[in-house]
C-alpha cells in the first residue's frame, strides 16, 4: 500500500510537470516557434479521446464482455479513415468563419441563431457532466485502491466520508488547473498552444504507463501472451469471453450501434472538436493523423485483454473490480512503484480529458449561453463599459468551475451505480445528437434553423428519457416505477423498451430512438419551410466552403458602418491594444496606412464580426455588430440574386472557356478546309494543265500537216493521203477528248444526268461485244463471251454502263497482240452483286502503273506501241461504276495479260420475282 501523501504528492508533481510543458508551449508560441505545429503532436493531442475510461474502463469491459470493448476503438479508426474529408471540411469552415466550438458551428450554420447555440450548449453540458464525473470517479477509485488497507476485497468507491470531500478537492484542483491552462487570456481563435502541448505530452505518458503495466502483467506475472490465453481457454468462463458469439450479447446490432456511436463521438465530442478542429494549425496534419491516431488506439489496446484475463485469473471473478486491475495487479505483486506509475497514467488520462472538455464546454457556455443572455439585458445595453475582456474571462472561469462541480454532483448521484464504460456511453449518445445538424449543415443546403432545433430537441429529449433518467433512477434518486411500468403507467412508454422495442441493450436502444427522432424531425421540419436569406447565406458558405476559397468570403450584407464604431466594439471584447493591432494589420492587407482610411464597406464589417465571433461566438458577434451598423437586411431573394450572380459569373467564364475551345476547333477546321481547297486548287490546276497539253498535242500535228500541205502543193499523193489521214484521226482524237473532258467534269461536279432503267446485264454485255466485233476482226484478235443462263436485273443508266463496257473491251483490244490476241468477257452472278471480267493476253501492266492508270491522263503501255487514247477512259469508267455503288479494279502481271473487273450491287429485292417488282 501507498500512503495518501505519496499519491497526492506524485499527482501534484505530475501536474507541475504538465504545467511546465504547457508554459513552455505557450512561450514558444509567443516567440513564433510553435512546438505543436507538426503532425505528430497533432495526432497525439487527438489521443485525448482515450480518457480514464480507456485506461481503466476498457479492462473492466473486457473482463465482463471480452472483445466487447473493441467497438469504442474500431469506431474512431473507421471514422478517421472514412470521414477525414468531413473533418477537413469542418476545419476549413471553422477556420474561415472563426468558429470555436460545436455550438458556434451549429448556431452559425443555421443563421447565427442564439437559440440553437444555447440548446447545443445545454446538450453538451448535460451530456458531458457524466463524462467528467467518470474521470473524477476514476481518480478517486484509483486513489482508494492505492491507499486502501484491504488488498483482497472489493474496493468500494467514495464511501469513506473523509474522501467524499477529497473528490471535491480533486474537482476543484482540476478546475483551477484548467483555468490556468485554458482561460488565462482571450484569443480570437480560441487556440491554446500550451494546452495542446500538455495534452500531447499526457497522451504519451498514459500510453507508456499502460504499455509498461501491460508488459508487466504479460511477461512479469505470466509468461507472455501464449501463457495468458492458454490459461484463459482452460477456464470455461474466461474462454467464453474470447468468443465473438457470447461477447456480442446484444447481437450484431449492438456491435453496429457501439461502433457508430464511437465514430460519431470521435468527430463530435466537444473536446475532440477542440483539438481536431479549433487547435488545428495546419490542414495537412490531418492526413498524417488519419493513420497515426488509429495506430495509437491499436497500441493502447494491445494489452487490454491480457490485463483483463490476467486479473481475472489472478483474483478470480467477482472479487476485485476489474476496472482497477491496472492498479491492483501491480499492487498485489508488491510493485508499488509500478502501481504509482499506473495511477499517474490514469490520472494523466483523466486530467487531459477534463481540461480539454471543460475548456471546450466553457467556451460554449460563455459564447452561446451567457453572452447572448447578457447582451439581451437592458442593464448591459445601457452600460458602456469600454473593455469587457475581464468579464469574458470571468464567465469562462466560472463556467469551468461550474461544469466541474456539476460533474462532481453527478459522481455523487450516479457514480456508484454504474461502471466506467456505461457512464461514458451515456455521454457518447448525447454527443451523437449533434451529428444530423452538423453533417446536414455541411452537406445539405435545405436544413433550416427550426429543423435543427426540432431535431436536436427531439433527440435530446429521447436521450434524456431513455438513458439519462434511467441512469439516475437506477442510482436510487428517482422512483424506479417509471422504468418498469412506463411513464403514467403506460407500458409502451417504458424508457428502456420504448414502443415495445426490446432485445437491445439500453445504449443501442436509446441511440436508435434518439437518432431516429432527431433525423426525422430535422429533415421534416427543414423541408416544411424554405430557408430564409440568412440561413441560405450561411448554408452556402458552409456547403461550398471548398469551392469558395479561403481568402474571398462572400459578403451577403448591405448597409454602412463606421470604423469609429467598429473598433471600440471589438476592443470591448478583445482589449483595446489587440483590437488596434488587428485593424492595423487588416488595413495593411487592404493597402491602407491608417485605420481611419479604411473604407466602411461590407468587408470591414465582415472582418470585425469574424474577429468578435472568435471571442463571443458568431451569434453574439452578429448581434453586437448589428447594434453599431445601419443594416438593411437582405431577403432570401436578394441573397439568391447574389448567389446567382456568382454562379452566373462562373457559368459565364465556363461559357468563355467553351467558346475559346470551340474557336480553336473552328480554326483547325478552317485550316484543314483551306488546305483541302488549296489541294483541290492544285489538282484543278494540274487538270487544266493536263487538258491543255492533251489538246495541244493533236493540234500540233493537225497544224503542222495542214501547213505543210498548204505550203507545198507538190507533195506526192502518197504522203498527202497519209498526212490527211493523220489530220482526220487527230481531229477525231480531239473530239473524243473534248467529249470526255466534259463528261468527266459533269460526273465529278454531280451535274451528270442519269437515266436509270432496269437492265439485263446479259443483254448489255452481249451488245457491247457485238459493237466491238469489227474492231477485233480488224486486228485479227478473238473475243470470247461467257454469260450465265440468267442474271437478275439491276437498275442503272444503260448508256453509261455500255460506255464502261466499251471502254474496257476496246482498251483490251488495243493492247492484245494482233494475231494471237484473245479477250474474254465474262459475266457472273455473285451473292448480292454482278461481276464482269474483261481479260486480255496483252503485255500486262507494270506493278508501278497499276495504281496510276485510273488517274486522269495517265495512259498505260509502252510509248512505242501505245495505242491512241485520251487517258480519261478508265477514270470515267471507275466514276460510273462507283456511282452505282460498285467497284472497278485491275489485276495484272507483266507479260501475262490483264484482267479488268467490276462489280455492281443488286437491289435488295432482286431475284424475288416480278411480283415484288410490280409493287
Amino acid at each position, binding site marked *: 500500500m501507498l500512503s495518501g501523501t505519496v499519491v497526492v504528492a506524485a499527482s501534484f508533481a505530475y501536474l507541475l510537470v504538465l504545467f511546465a510543458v504547457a508554459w513552455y508551449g505557450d512561450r514558444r508560441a509567443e516567440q513564433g516557434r510553435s512546438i505543436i505545429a507538426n503532425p505528430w503532436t497533432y495526432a497525439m493531442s487527438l489521443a485525448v479521446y482515450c480518457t480514464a475510461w480507456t485506461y481503466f474502463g476498457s479492462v473492466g469491459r473486457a473482463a465482463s464482455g471480452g472483445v466487447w470493448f473493441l467497438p469504442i476503438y474500431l469506431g474512431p479508426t473507421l471514422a478517421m479513415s472514412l470521414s477525414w474529408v468531413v473533418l477537413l471540411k469542418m476545419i476549413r469552415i471553422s477556420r474561415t468563419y472563426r468558429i470555436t466550438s460545436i455550438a458556434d458551428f451549429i448556431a452559425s450554420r443555421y443563421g447565427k441563431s442564439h437559440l440553437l447555440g444555447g440548446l447545443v450548449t445545454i446538450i453538451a453540458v448535460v451530456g458531458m457532466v457524466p463524462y467528467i464525473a467518470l474521470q473524477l470517479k476514476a481518480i478517486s477509485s484509483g486513489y482508494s485502491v492505492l491507499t486502501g488497507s484491504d488488498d483482497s476485497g472489493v474496493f468500494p468507491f467514495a464511501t469513506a466520508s473523509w474522501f467524499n470531500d477529497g473528490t471535491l478537492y480533486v474537482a476543484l484542483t482540476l478546475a483551477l488547473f484548467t483555468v490556468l491552462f485554458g482561460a488565462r487570456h482571450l484569443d480570437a481563435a480560441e487556440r491554446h498552444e500550451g494546452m495542446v502541448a500538455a495534452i500531447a505530452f499526457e497522451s504519451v505518458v498514459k500510453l507508456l504507463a499502460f504499455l509498461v503495466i501491460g508488459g508487466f502483467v504479460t511477461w512479469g506475472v505470466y509468461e507472455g501472451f501464449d501463457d495468458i490465453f492458454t490459461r484463459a481457454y482452460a477456464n470455461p468462463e474466461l474462454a467464453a469471453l474470447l468468443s465473438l458469439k457470447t461477447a456480442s450479447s446484444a447481437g450484431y446490432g449492438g456491435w453496429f450501434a457501439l461502433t457508430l456511436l464511437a465514430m460519431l463521438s470521435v468527430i463530435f465530442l466537444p473536446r475532440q472538436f477542440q483539438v481536431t478542429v479549433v487547435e488545428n494549425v495546419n490542414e495537412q496534419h490531418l492526413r498524417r493523423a488519419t493513420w497515426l491516431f488509429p495506430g495509437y488506439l491499436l497500441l493502447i489496446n494491445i494489452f487490454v485483454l491480457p490485463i483483463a484475463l490476467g486479473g481475472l485469473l489472478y483474483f478470480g471473478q467477482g472479487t476485485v473490480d476489474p476496472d482497477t486491475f491496472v492498479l491492483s495487479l501491480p499492487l498485489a505483486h508488491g510493485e508499488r512503484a509500478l502501481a504509482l506509475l499506473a495511477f499517474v497514467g490514469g490520472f494523466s488520462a483523466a486530467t487531459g480529458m477534463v481540461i480539454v472538455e471543460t475548456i471546450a464546454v466553457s467556451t460554449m457556455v460563455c459564447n452561446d449561453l451567457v453572452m447572448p443572455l447578457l447582451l439581451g439585458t437592458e442593464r448591459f445595453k445601457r452600460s458602456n463599459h469600454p473593455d469587457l475582456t475581464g468579464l469574458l474571462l470571468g464567465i469562462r472561469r466560472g463556467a469551468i468551475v461550474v461544469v466541474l462541480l456539476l460533474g462532481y454532483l453527478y459522481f455523487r448521484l450516479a457514480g456508484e451505480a454504474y461502471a466506467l464504460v456505461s457512464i461514458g456511453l451515456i455521454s457518447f449518445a448525447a454527443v451523437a445528437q449533434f451529428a444530423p445538424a452538423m453533417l446536414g449543415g455541411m452537406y445539405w443546403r435545405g436544413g433550416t434553423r427550426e429543423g435543427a432545433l426540432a431535431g436536436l430537441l427531439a433527440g435530446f429529449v429521447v436521450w434524456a428519457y431513455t438513458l439519462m433518467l434511467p441512469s439516475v433512477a437506477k442510482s436510487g434518486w428517482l422512483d424506479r416505477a417509471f422504468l418498469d411500468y412506463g411513464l403514467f403507467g403506460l407500458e409502451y412508454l417504458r424508457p428502456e423498451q420504448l414502443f415495445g422495442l426490446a432485445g437491445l441493450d439500453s445504449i443501442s436502444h436509446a441511440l436508435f430512438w434518439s437518432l431516429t427522432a432527431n433525423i426525422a424531425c430535422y429533415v421534416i421540419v427543414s423541408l416544411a419551410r424554405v430557408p430564409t436569406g440568412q440561413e441560405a447565406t450561411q448554408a452556402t458558405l458552409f456547403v461550398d466552403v471548398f469551392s469558395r476559397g479561403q481568402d474571398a468570403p462572400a459578403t451577403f450584407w448591405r448597409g454602412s458602418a463606421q470604423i469609429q464604431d467598429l473598433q471600440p466594439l471589438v476592443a470591448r471584447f478583445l482589449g483595446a491594444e489587440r483590437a488596434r493591432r488587428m485593424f492595423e494589420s487588416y488595413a495593411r492587407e487592404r493597402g491602407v496606412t491608417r485605420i481611419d482610411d479604411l473604407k466602411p464597406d461590407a468587408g470591414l464589417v465582415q472582418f470585425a464580426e469574424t474577429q468578435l465571433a472568435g471571442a463571443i461566438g458568431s451569434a453574439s458577434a452578429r448581434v453586437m455588430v448589428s447594434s453599431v451598423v445601419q443594416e438593411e437586411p437582405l431577403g432570401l431573394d436578394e441573397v439568391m440574386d447574389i448567389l446567382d450572380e456568382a454562379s452566373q459569373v462562373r457559368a459565364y467564364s465556363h461559357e468563355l472557356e467553351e467558346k475559346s475551345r470551340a474557336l480553336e476547333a473552328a480554326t483547325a477546321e478552317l485550316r484543314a478546309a483551306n488546305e483541302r481547297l488549296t489541294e483541290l486548287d492544285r489538282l484543278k490546276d494540274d487538270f487544266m494543265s493536263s487538258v491543255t497539253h492533251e489538246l*495541244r498535242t493533236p493540234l500540233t500535228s493537225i*497544224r503542222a500537216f495542214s501547213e505543210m500541205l498548204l505550203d507545198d502543193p507538190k507533195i506526192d499523193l502518197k504522203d498527202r493521203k497519209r498526212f490527211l489521214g*493523220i489530220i482526220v484521226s*487527230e481531229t477525231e482524237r480531239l473530239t473524243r477528248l473534248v467529249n470526255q473532258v466534259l463528261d468527266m467534269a459533269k460526273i465529278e461536279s454531280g451535274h451528270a444526268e442519269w437515266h436509270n432503267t432496269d437492265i439485263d446485264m446479259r443483254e448489255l454485255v452481249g451488245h457491247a461485244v457485238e459493237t466491238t466485233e469489227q474492231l477485233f476482226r480488224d486486228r485479227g484478235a478473238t473475243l470470247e463471251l461467257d454469260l450465265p443462263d440468267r442474271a437478275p436485273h439491276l437498275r442503272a443508266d444503260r448508256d453509261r454502263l455500255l460506255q464502261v463496257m466499251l471502254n474496257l473491251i476496246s482498251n483490251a483490244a488495243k493492247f492484245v497482240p494482233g494475231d494471237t490476241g484473245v479477250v474474254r468477257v465474262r459475266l457472273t452472278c455473285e451473292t448480292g452483286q454482278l461481276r464482269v471480267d474483261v481479260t486480255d493476253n496483252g503485255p500486262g501492266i507494270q506493278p508501278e502503273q497499276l495504281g496510276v492508270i485510273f488517274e486522269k491522263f495517265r495512259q498505260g503501255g509502252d510509248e512505242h506501241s501505245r495505242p491512241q487514247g485520251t487517258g480519261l477512259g478508265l477514270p470515267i469508267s471507275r466514276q460510273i461504276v462507283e456511282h452505282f455503288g460498285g467497284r472497278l479494279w485491275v489485276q495484272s502481271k507483266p507479260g501475262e495479260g490483264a484482267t479488268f473487273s467490276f462489280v455492281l450491287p443488286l437491289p435488295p429485292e432482286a431475284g424475288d420475282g416480278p411480283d415484288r417488282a410490280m409493287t
Partner: protein
Amino acid sequence: MAKKILIADDEQNIVISLEFLMKREGYEVSVANDGDEAARRIRAEKPDLVLLDVMMPKKSGFEVCQEVKSNPELQSVRILMLTAKGRDTEVAKGLALGADAYMTKPFSTKELVERVRSMLAER
C-alpha cells in the same frame, strides 16, 4: 556536210511531221521516242541541234537538257525545246536550264524552220 538534227518526242504524228519538215530542209535526221533514248543518241551522235519535247516518258526534256548542258563534250549541241504546256514558268525553266530556244506547240512550221535555220547559222 549536212547538219544533224535529233527529233525527241513521244508523239508519233508529231515526229512524222517534224521529220518531214527537217528532211525537206536538207538536214540529216534521227529520232528518239523517249528521254532516255534522246540522251543516249545525243551523246553518241552529237547532233548539231535537238528538237526536244518536254513531256516524255522515262526522262523529261528538262532533265535531258540539263544533262547535255552540263557535259563539256556536248557544248556544240543546240537545244530547241518544244512543249505543249505553254505556261511562262515552263519557258523560264527551260531557258534557265540552258535551252537555246523555246517554242510552244502548236507551232507554225515556217517559224520553226526559220528558228532552226538561224540557230544552226549562228556558228
